[in-house]
């Protein structure tokens, strides 16, 4: 049974082409995926991301639980509101999910997990909790909706609709959060642009969405969300990494804390098996489109594309790929596209940030 967000009817009324995404009936685009992509890079767009699941983690042992549960170190969260991106690993060091955890207050955290993995994640957390006998409540907040606003003008549009949120969010640095009334407003996102991710009661989502539409904010589908995150060099769970992939081979070493004495699930496996591949970007020099699972031929051995598409901002095809450790940024490699070897340049895995091309 396909699940629906509270905005499902709204998307259909706006003429969205709907697709199944991780068991959810979601808008792919509302007309043109490329126009939506440009709207976010040049102005502002909004995404219904209520399929993602907010999870409240509270109790005397909430911090101790998270210290053991995830690969990044929640001890880095010193100030209330601060957010942390992390992988949650299994015993063999594979990625169960990637997530953001927000430090709300002492003994109180909020986590946002992926849609397709939510049930699995919740079962995983419940099992760890039972093993560890900690005083923590893990509560999935399906009563909430999440609307992301991204783009150079995103914040101004939100303040236009919600002037009461301005004071609390104006000085908020990237990767922080704050509660304003019923809204939980975070300076996080998945596009490489500035903006907010706003979690609010599902019952208020439609009114808020409509107010934003009236203010001229373009609705953006998951299609553009994917090209935006790809240009920003952000991983997609299930594509760039999964339970069989080490975070060290998926460009996530920066999120894994192996330095502190803290023990966490998957740490022994990561220590036993260091990085095997490096996660880099590719820009196709020939005409064509890079796609996931295409083989990359390098002088140092073969690699594989994990995410690829046409970049609307750069007007050429880009990809994220797992390449041999000896391959260097600046190298020209070849990608096997339907039996033809096409030239691609190896670059840092971040193509566009804040509207500017980086490659």
């Amino acid at each position, binding site marked *: 049974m396909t699940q629906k967000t509270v905005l499902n009817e709204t998307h259909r009324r706006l003429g969205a*082409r709907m697709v199944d995404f991780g068991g959810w009936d979601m808008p*792919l*685009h509302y007309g*043109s*995926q*490329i126009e939506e992509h440009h709207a976010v890079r040049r102005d502002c767009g909004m995404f219904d991301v209520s399929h993602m699941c907010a999870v409240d983690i509270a109790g005397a042992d909430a911090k101790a639980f998270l210290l053991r549960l995830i690969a990044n170190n929640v001890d880095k969260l010193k100030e209330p509101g601060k957010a942390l991106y992390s992988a949650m690993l299994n015993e063999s060091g594979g990625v169960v999910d990637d997530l953001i955890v927000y430090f709300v207050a002492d003994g109180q955290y909020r986590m946002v997990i992926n849609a397709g993995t939510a049930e699995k994640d919740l079962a995983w957390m419940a099992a760890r909790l039972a093993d560890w006998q900690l005083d923590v409540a893990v509560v999935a907040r399906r009563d909430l909706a999440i609307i992301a606003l991204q783009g150079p003008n995103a914040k101004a549009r939100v303040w236009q609709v919600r002037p009461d949120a301005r004071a609390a969010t104006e000085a908020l640095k990237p990767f922080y959060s704050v509660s304003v009334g019923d809204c939980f407003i975070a300076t996080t996102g998945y596009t490489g642009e500035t903006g907010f991710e706003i979690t609010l009661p599902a019952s208020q989502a439609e009114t808020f969405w409509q107010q934003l539409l009236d203010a001229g904010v373009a609705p953006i589908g998951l*299609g553009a969300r994917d*090209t935006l995150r790809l240009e920003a060099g952000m991983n997609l769970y299930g594509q760039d990494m999964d339970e069989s992939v080490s975070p060290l081979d998926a460009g996530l070493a920066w999120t894994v804390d192996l330095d502190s004495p803290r023990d966490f699930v998957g740490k022994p496996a990561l220590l036993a098996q260091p990085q095997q591949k490096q996660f880099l970007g590719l820009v196709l020099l020939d*005409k*064509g*489109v890079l*796609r996931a699972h295409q083989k990359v031929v390098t002088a140092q051995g073969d690699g594989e594309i994990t995410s690829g*598409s*046409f970049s*609307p901002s750069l007007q050429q*095809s880009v990809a994220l790929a797992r390449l041999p450790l000896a391959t260097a940024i600046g190298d020209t490699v070849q990608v096997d596209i*339907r039996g033809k070897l096409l030239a691609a340049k190896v670059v840092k895995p971040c193509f566009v940030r804040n509207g500017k091309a980086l490659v």
Partner: protein
Amino acid sequence: MNIPANLKYTKSHEWVRVESDGTVTVGITDHAQELLGDLVFVELPDIGKTLAAEQEAAIVESVKAASDVYAPIAGTVIEVNGAVPDAPESVNQDAYAAWLFKLKPANAADVDALLDAAAYAACADE
């Protein structure tokens, strides 16, 4: 759905127009371009290539995915629309104007077996 009555169609969403000289012009339908979304890459066959019916003839790629375009009938490629690879979005704008290739049929009667507009509408509706 935009399905001109004067064209022939295939189940794999190509349209076919029989020209006065007996050659056929081939493109993808408006329904196909809508399913694919914004096109960003088109690869056309080489002129002179001989194709069997239902053989892969061209490739159209949208932001989302790559898709094959098949030869509706057997024939030889006599012309391609070189403007399309330079502007793949022209197929989204008008799929019936942005033709992809022209074939000299191996057997002129083969087009009679293709779908008419009503039959294609029924099949595209599924």
